[in-house]
């Protein structure tokens, strides 16, 4: 239970920071997608099905918070979690440079999907501008990995976010 509360609190921080602090650190309006980064971290430390469910539920919370196109983030973060679970089988979770590459690739794919679905739903974006935003967000997310991942990984493997023993054995 304590674990879920901590995960939810981190999600809330991920929702508040981009609109406030990261506004001052944004490059041409581009800020990191912390909710997506958080789902990537969660999916890296859970089994595929659990990761996808986490992705969907977190996405739904993000959608409610944004109040627009409810379900968009839910689908995208579930797909992001799926991609992570497919890729992480060939990846070392402990290696930070590799995790940065993983975060970059998955964020590019996730944001591209986001741009495609949002455009279909009615948001107007030019291709060139969308590409700029996608690459910007992905690069920003990737830069945040060395600053955040060591703590998150430690917490998931031996700290407060560590999954229960039973789940650990099944892994």
């Amino acid at each position: 239970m304590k674990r879920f509360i901590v995960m939810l609190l981190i999600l809330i921080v991920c929702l508040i920071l981009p609109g406030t602090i990261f506004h001052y650190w944004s490059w041409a309006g581009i800020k990191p997608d912390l909710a997506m980064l958080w789902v990537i971290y969660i999916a890296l430390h859970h089994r595929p099905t659990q990761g996808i469910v986490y992705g969907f539920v977190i996405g739904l919370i993000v959608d409610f918070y944004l109040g627009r196109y409810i379900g968009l983030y839910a689908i995208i973060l579930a797909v992001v979690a799926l991609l992570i679970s497919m890729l992480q089988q060939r990846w070392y979770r402990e290696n930070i440079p590799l995790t940065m590459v993983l975060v970059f690739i998955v964020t590019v794919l996730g944001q591209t999907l986001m741009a495609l679905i949002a455009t279909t739903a009615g948001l107007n974006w030019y291709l060139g501008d969308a590409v700029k935003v996608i690459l910007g967000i992905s690069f920003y997310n990737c830069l945040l990995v060395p600053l955040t991942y060591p703590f998150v990984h430690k917490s998931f493997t031996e700290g407060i976010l560590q999954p229960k023993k039973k789940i650990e054995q099944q892994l």
Partner: protein
Amino acid sequence: MGKKINPMGIAVLVFAVLLITLTTIHLTGLGSQSPNPVGNAMQRVLSPIESAIWNLGDGIKDNFRAIFSFRTVKAENEELRKQVETLTGDNLQLKQQVLAALRYQELDAVFQSPSLESYEKIGATIINRNPSAWYQTVTVNKGSDHGVKVDDPVVANLGLVGKVISVTPKTSDVLLLLDGEGQVGAFARGNKGEAIFGIVKGTYKKNTRLNSSGELEMNFRQDDEVNAGDLVYTSGLGEVYPKDISIGVVTEIKIDAKGLLKVASIEPIVDFDSLEEVYVVSIPEGSR
């Protein structure tokens, strides 16, 4: 022994979830007015925290700017002094024109043009920006308790900012003109004083990372005489924005790829990045 997994069952479940989600995406687009109690509750709980961070951030930004860019601030000060002199001269000329405009307004009242001055304005402070880079919205600290309604126009001192898209008792979300869905009916005032109508919409053209001002776009017919430097105002058509609120200045005109339209880039008068205070224009029910 683990449970047997039925692949067909999983496929049906995934398909059902996808279908439901795609339907809700479609139904909860902009202007749908669908209820969002979870989001509203989150907004209510989180807005004081967001507001506190925002105030702190502004304080730090202002103070650090003064300390670290002393030379820039000094140069800026000299520049501003020069501008004050020029503006004082301009002001005198304008006063004469105001007198002429007053006469025009008397005539205008006859035609009952819905101009901005005739409405009540509610001052509001921005407490949050949209966390996603895809949506261009801000949250302000005034809501339905203060008389804010969905679709109310939002202006800053210099010009149009956007419109209210959702309201909670204490906060409301404002869709900026820069958003991909932030269209507004507008006209450009040509050099002969004639109005050329069109629609202004948000684009995302930011040339360098240092140029943080977004640009807007407006389409005209091939034979419309629009020039760089023309001012763009709201047209009052479309029943959301009152007439004659300034939007921006035409900076560049291009012919579109098909050669049928002129596409004008418009630099908004409002600096959306450093926007802190706005006014919500309260339009009485039934007068749209």
